[in-house]
């Protein structure tokens, strides 16, 4: 059995050699290729509509050409492109800030005691919920908006936070609140995995500060930076619902992003070719960013050395002094409180009656009770809850069944090097493909098949959309397995199943990470459900959005619906967070 890595081919011999070596190539069994078949079929759900969109973009009345791309000279479209690029920049900003926060918490132990749950909760809730939360906080009426109230108290008058230009602050705050915790957790896990002897050796050499960062932390964390950047870029490109819920109608034009612009164009009956061209431009931007951002994923991830002997605790990281520990503990508590504050505001707002929440902020003491929850329940919240549960569970199950064999095939199936590379590149591009690229053709197909409004169709689309990232993640985890373990598993007569059993045992963190992330992603999704689903599959996010149309006056029911919609993903994330982070970063520990 050959192991291939970095162009080097290793032949592992697991037993005594009995005959002479025979020249020639070993036969490659075709069996493993079958493992990739389901993934191929599922990916076609995306690939074919993407192809249709690309063709439509280049088809002009007189044949093929770039005629449709004249849409890009349109002022609105140009502004949308600019804003979308701005969002990608915001992403990089968040990754950098997250890295330094992680470094800070690493150098000041005990910070993480409280920080973990506080950082995870925002990550678990949907974009729509965090948008609603920040719109509550920044409401321009001093009786309702927390920030406006504080500002007015301090300086006599407050800027209109949702007004022209300033709404960016609210948007970026909401986005950052959602993603920063995730970024910090991942980087922190990576830092924790740096072997102590390495870092001690560097310290002994007197390498400090920036030089140490450049020599040690940055190179070692590059693969993790790849994972992080990829996920956050995907989110930034999907920014759509955040703008719909945060920015008042009169300002939405200046907050326009390509996704929204595309959607408005499709709905106002623009020429399909032009809207397809918009989609292709969006896609090109994102694919470029994605491919740059995931170079870390392509390399073999830096695997954890297998510790055979428990390290002597006295040789571990030196324990900081007690005063430093206490200081770190206090800082951690302060940051955690600030970070959890928006969620607290949301919950308390939900506990006010609709009348009270519409007039006064969360700090008012009257009108407490559950009437906002009752009001939210009256617009079909619980039906939507059930619908969402079915869709998310089905999508997660389908995804796992298909992604595991595929990832195994890519990691250990002995694919020729070039094929493996190509498959990976395709998956990276698919992972960041915006929904707009496949929504319209897919929707037509679902309609034509008479599946409009079927939950299973929607779940399949979700599974297809989640597949690329799941495969990338699982493949990294599989590839980081200790080679001895794999070679051993590959020796037996029932090779594939033995390997799969080992995989199951060893890679549970990565599997759980994929399952939890997919479930939460589908549960919180707005854009796919909005663009692809038909009537009959109203997901939670659509109910929430319907409630939020007249935002301030319905603060109470909106907050209540948001709280109800967040319970499941928050509990799920808090329960599995450690495992998820392990699965996302260090792959496996035997």
């Amino acid at each position, binding site marked *: 059995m050959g192991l291939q890595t970095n162009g080097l081919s290793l032949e592992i011999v697991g037993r005594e050699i009995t005959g002479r070596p025979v020249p020639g190539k070993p036969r490659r069994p075709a069996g493993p290729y079958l493992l990739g078949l389901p993934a191929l079929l599922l990916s076609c759900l995306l690939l074919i509509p993407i192809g249709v969109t690309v063709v439509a973009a280049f088809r002009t009345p007189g044949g093929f050409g770039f005629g449709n791309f004249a849409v890009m000279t349109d002022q609105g479209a140009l502004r949308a492109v600019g804003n979308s690029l701005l969002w990608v920049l915001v992403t990089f900003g968040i990754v950098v800030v997250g890295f330094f926060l992680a470094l800070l918490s690493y150098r000041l132990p005990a910070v993480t005691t409280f920080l973990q749950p506080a950082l995870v909760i925002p990550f678990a809730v949907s974009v729509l919920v965090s948008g609603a939360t920040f719109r509550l906080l920044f409401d*321009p009426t001093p009786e309702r908006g927390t920030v406006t109230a504080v500002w007015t108290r301090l300086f006599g008058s407050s800027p209109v936070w949702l007004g*022209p230009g300033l709404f960016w602050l609210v948007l970026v705050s909401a986005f950052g609140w959602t993603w920063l915790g995730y970024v910090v957790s991942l980087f922190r896990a990576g830092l924790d995995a740096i072997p102590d002897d390495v870092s001690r050796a560097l310290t002994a050499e007197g390498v400090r500060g920036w030089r140490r960062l450049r020599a040690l932390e940055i190179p070692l964390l590059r693969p993790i930076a790849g994972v992080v950047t990829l996920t956050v870029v995907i989110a930034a490109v999907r920014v759509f619902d955040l703008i719909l819920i945060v920015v008042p109608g009169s300002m939405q*034009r200046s907050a326009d992003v390509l996704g929204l612009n595309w959607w408005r164009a499709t709905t106002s009956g623009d020429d399909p070719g032009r809207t397809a061209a918009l989609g292709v431009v969006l896609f090109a931007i994102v694919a470029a960013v994605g491919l740059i951002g995931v170079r870390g994923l392509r390399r073999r991830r830096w695997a954890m050395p297998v510790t055979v002997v428990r390290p002597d605790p006295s040789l571990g990281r030196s324990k900081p002094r007690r005063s430093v520990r206490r200081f770190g503990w206090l800082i951690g508590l302060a940051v955690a409180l600030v970070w959890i504050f928006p969620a607290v505001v949301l919950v308390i707002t939900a506990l006010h009656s609709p009348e009270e929440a*519409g007039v006064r902020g969360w700090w008012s003491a009257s009108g407490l009770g559950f009437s906002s929850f009752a*009001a939210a329940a009256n617009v079909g919240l619980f039906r939507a809850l059930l619908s969402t549960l079915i869709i998310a569970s089905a999508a997660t199950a389908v995804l796992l069944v298909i992604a595991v064999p595929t990832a195994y095939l890519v990691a250990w199936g002995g694919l020729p090097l070039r094929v493996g590379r190509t498959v990976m590149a395709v998956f990276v591009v698919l992972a960041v493909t915006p929904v707009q690229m496949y929504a319209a053709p897919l929707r037509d197909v679902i309609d034509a098949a008479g599946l409009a409004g079927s939950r299973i169709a929607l779940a399949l689309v979700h599974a297809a959309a989640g597949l690329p990232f799941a495969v990338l993640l699982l493949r990294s985890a599989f590839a980081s397995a200790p080679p001895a373990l794999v070679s051993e598993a590959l020796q037996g007569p029932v090779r594939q199943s033995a390997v799969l059993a080992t995989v199951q045992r060893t890679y549970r963190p990565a599997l759980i990470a994929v399952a939890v992330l997919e479930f939460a992603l589908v549960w919180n999704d707005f854009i796919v459900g909005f663009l692809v689903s038909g009537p009959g599959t109203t997901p939670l996010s659509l109910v929430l959005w319907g*409630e939020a149309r*007249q935002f301030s006056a*319905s603060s109470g029911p909106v907050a209540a619906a948001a709280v109800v919609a967040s319970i499941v993903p928050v509990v799920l994330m808090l329960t599995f967070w450690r495992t998820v982070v392990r699965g996302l970063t260090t792959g496996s520990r035997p």
Partner: protein
Amino acid sequence: MAVSWSGQELRAFHKVLDGLGTLDYPVEVVPLGDDISTAFGARSTRRPDIVMLPQPGLVPRHLGDLEPMPDDLAPLGQARLWKDLLTHDGTTYGVPFKTAHKSAVWYRPSVFEQVGVQPPRLWSEWLTLNRTLTQAGITPLSLAAGDGWVLTDFLENVLLGIAPSVYVDLAAATDPRPSRQPQFAAALRLLGSMWSAPGVLAGGVKESLVQQFPDALIEVFGHRRAAMVLASDFAEPVVRSFAADPKDIGLFTFPPMSPGAAAPVVVGGDVMVLPKPTRDDARDLVRRLSAPDAPDPWIKEGGFLVDGRVSGYSPELTRLAVQLTKPGEQLQFDLSDQLGRLGDINGLWRVLTDFLIQVGGRGGDVPGAVDDAIDELRRVEES
């Protein structure tokens, strides 16, 4: 079924559905908000069985996408006013569910008593009233500029008040060019003169821009920071549930623009249409919803007018309902719905939003702002 309602209105509609008794098919209500026009269209991504369309003016533009109404329901779509929009070549494509009176101004009587004035009977009196209130330290007007349709409603009232014939021509034109109508610019000037007067708008233009329709009502009745607000009949439940003083609620209708002219009455409404292809279940639901007593639960909640019915409402709404059925009134359907793309979120909504920002930011250079708005409108017409 796609609807544009949310919050309280959506809950009221659910009560209406519950009141229909048990149906042998599930009804799913999808709230699409202002983007309800996405429910049909060449490449619609959502095709519901029934659309509750808040812009009846869109019906003539989408005849190809709609199923004709069954014969037993067709007469409902042929009532006065509705006929021009819903019936085409003898075939009816929609049935009215709800009527909206868009020329109502809700105010707090206590403030008017405080400065000793009556509701205005003429546009010029209204401007004087605003000055009187400002001098007494009271902000007269709350404007929900965060919702574009509030601004177009205001403009339509002024235009219908000064030039009904221009209004009707624009509504009927296949390729409307409002930027070429001097009366349209005149209406903008009048509007600008009201909006740009110092201290008239609660929170100034900046805060008006982020105020949605219910926020403006809360501003008047909840926080009591302004005296009045132009809002349709469906503002009623919001006004009543957020009013700090439930007895301090009054209503007057939009005054005539000049002595001897008729007062403008802009009418809107929600019509039920059936996108192609339809099913029997959908026809059945439309039939049930158009029964005379179907909307009773919503009428109890308030803020609901039925075409041609004048009883069973609160006193304020009864006045509006009577005005809608009186002969000889200057009734016209909402104009922006009938202008197609020109009247929607990227057309007139945007032009008026920018116009408001201009008159607010230029310290009252109304003529300049009007010229810019007309230029922008021309660009939209030509695109």
